[in-house]
């Protein structure tokens, strides 16, 4: 396959960026999207040009590092991570636009690499259960009903990639935050911190400059792990409940 790539190039956080055009040839349909970019970068290095910077690591869809907007869609045309997208989803002669996550809370570091540390700070605000090492009771002391355990797992699957934010017209982080709130709040182990968790995490989310939620639903459509939109509804309920309980 022969492709035309239009790639966002930006030297560093302070510099202006622009789209640059590259031609790549000899692309196999078995390649992953990132292997296609590897091919481009090998050519750029040999030409003495700066290769395109992008985040990636496990390349099996679980670490959450890769983060490209492809033809306007977070992670591209399929519901998966960028690393699991393959070139068979494109046709010979296609022109492909490649951009970084676009959100004011995710400033660009270089080219396609953005700073997602705001997500870490949201978790630090309350996305945990206080259980210091050594203090744990026997694992079977507290049975967890299977539906609750399954629901916790479904939300815990979030890989923290940020596609939800990139897809959202408001740049909101509601789906990310709600996934962690729901994972921990549904479990009996998470109950003691149920109220502070949701209040503190939502407050941190707002402080980080993420936008507000208008229930557009783009986040859940882009999520490679299928975190459902109803997750946001559940978090809103948790938040309302906590506000009432704390103010009493």
């Amino acid at each position: 396959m022969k492709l035309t790539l239009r790639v966002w190039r930006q030297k560093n956080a302070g510099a202006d960026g622009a789209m640059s055009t590259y031609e790549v040839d000899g692309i196999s349909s078995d390649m992953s999207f990132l292997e296609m970019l590897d091919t481009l970068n090998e050519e750029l290095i040999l030409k003495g040009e700066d290769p395109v910077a992008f985040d990636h690591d496990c390349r099996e869809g679980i670490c959450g590092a890769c983060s490209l907007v492809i033809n306007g869609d977070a992670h591209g045309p399929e519901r998966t991570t960028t690393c699991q997208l393959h070139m068979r989803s494109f046709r010979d002669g296609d022109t492909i636009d490649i951009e970084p996550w676009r959100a004011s809370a995710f400033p660009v570091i270089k080219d396609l690499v953005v700073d997602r540390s705001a997500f870490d700070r949201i978790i630090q605000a309350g996305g945990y259960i206080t259980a210091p090492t050594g203090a744990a009771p026997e694992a079977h002391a507290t049975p967890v009903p299977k539906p609750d355990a399954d629901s916790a797992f479904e939300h815990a699957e979030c890989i923290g990639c940020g596609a939800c934010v990139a897809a959202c017209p408001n740049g909101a982080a509601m789906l990310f935050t709600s996934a962690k709130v729901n994972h921990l709040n549904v479990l009996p182990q998470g109950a003691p911190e149920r109220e502070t968790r949701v209040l503190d995490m939502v407050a941190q989310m707002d402080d980080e400059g993420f936008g507000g939620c208008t229930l557009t639903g783009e986040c859940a459509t882009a999520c490679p792990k299928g975190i459902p939109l109803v997750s946001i509804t559940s978090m809103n309920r948790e938040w309302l409940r906590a506000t009432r309980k704390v103010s009493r």
Partner: protein
Amino acid sequence: MTASSEYVDYETGAPAVDGKAPSGPVNERWDTRRFEAKLVNPANRRKHTVIVVGTGLAGGSAGATLAEQGYHVVQFCYQDSPRRAHSIAAQGGINAAKNYRNDGDSIHRLFYDTVKGGDFRARESNVHRLAQISVEIIDQCVAQGVPFAREYGGLLDTRSFGGVQVSRTFYARGQTGQQLLLGAYQALSRQIAAGNIEMHARTEMLDLIVIDGRARGIVARDLITGRIDTYFADAVVLASGGYGNVFYLSTNAMNSNATAIWRAHRRGAHFANPCFTQIHPTCIPRTGDHQSKLTLMSESLRNDGRIWVPKAKGDQRPPNEIPEAERDYYLERIYPSFGNLVPRDIASRAAKNVCDEGRGVGPGGQGVYLDFADAIRRMGRKAVEAKYGNLFDMYQRITDEDPYEVPMRIYPAVHYTMGGLWVDYDLQTTVPGLFAIGEANFSDHGANRLGASALMQGLADGYFVLPATINDYLARNPHKGGITAEHPVVQEVVAETEDRLNLLLAVDGDRTPDSFHREVGELMWEFCGMARTDAGLRKALERIPQIREEFWRRIKVPGTGEEFNQSLEKANRVVDYLELAELMCLDALHRSESCGGHFREESQTPDGEAARKDDEFAYAAAWEFTGTGTAPVLHKEDLVFEYVHPTQRSYA
């Protein structure tokens, strides 16, 4: 003595001695050591700084626990967030001797299985401690909210794993590593928020600072700005993972690397059993030269899938057109009692053998079929879907083939490294004050790791072992402070680091870092992969210094060191692979026996199985660095088996 054991390009030094392992009954040793270890007064702990490199299961759990104890922790990861460490990709599960199934499991049985699985090349004391701690790990993780699979009654579910006769593997669908890592990451996050951990993401350790014989800090590069900084501490903990990426293609993450442990090795930490690498039998084969990494398919698939190749060489027919009589279900044929469930090392070697015979399938003949047609007939498609659905989807996404209709194609790939920095019972390396935990050390898996044991070891080391043993070192070596960036040793280490990076940028040759990585990786796969020979290893040992020489003549790294520069990061990691590869081959050459994942073709039984030589090689090989390209010194740690008596494994 075979010819190979006369190979002399190394010297033998004093034996390696584990001075911290207590004596007495094996089940009392951990208690004994914990009691004998000195403690640090809680009020004094905050005066001690501990550096932790890496945030995977071992590093994440260690950082969180040390901070909870009151130490000041300074922690590093090269990823943009500690949540992305490669432990996250572990699929299958975590072993624990809970005996919830009442199926005869016990701490002693897990201990026994692990020593035997490691083909009698691990320390009994360490493995027993691991088995003891396994039960506490599950409690700890459940308390943190790790959503393990549960049964309808609300209790934890377990499953069986490779070659074991009890059901002791706890799991969270096919994402156990992810869920355990997020548990550790969340505990870490809590301590970061509390101000007890100073977290440096996107920062890579490039060297170790050793002053007056003790580890006192590291040199690290901020990957965004390129700035090289020094960090000082009372102890340094390496939790930087394994070195499987020396093979270029492996199931490791793209950026997993050996730099932290190799730089520590160069500064005096002995490197043990570098040739012990695990080749996992069920990975998706490569599709072409563009391949950047390999993806594992969980070994649980071998419970219901049948492995076969055509009987005839070069049979190009599609699998569905090859009649039953013309298929060779070779594992079932050679190992009738274990069939498709033989251990990983055996299954991998058998696949290599049939492909070497010219009977491999798929592009390049580097693959064998893993066929579910019988399982679908027997259980129905629905049941197969429920059991393996997400793995089938993953396979289909990568290969564009439907495994419900066409047999999967699989091939072995480098997965885990049992070798690593030599550590004593306290997990301390030969450099006082430098500790190594998780896959970065060598201690618990011998020559072959059992499935679902890596997660167990990472968390045992990080949550329970290191936080107990490091106290002893810190209590006996009180904080002296006073080290600054002006210290002559520090300035020297920083200058060496800067010189290395500047040289990489200055060569301005005509080959990319990846091209060299690929070249050394292919060489290692061919000569130090699934089967090793004296002649092949010698060839690799001749070739590696030549590649190294060419590297420093022809490497091309664009850009500067004062910016985000992924090519520079990569090139610097390849520098270390080019030295580590040599030690791996030398270790493989000197160990002229077969054991676990290390198969020497000269050492096999009449029916082609691995033949261990316990008289000659019942030791861990700890190598001391003496210089690039000069003969290292071998220190042998004799392994004593008082409880599990070495036997030759048989699966026929």
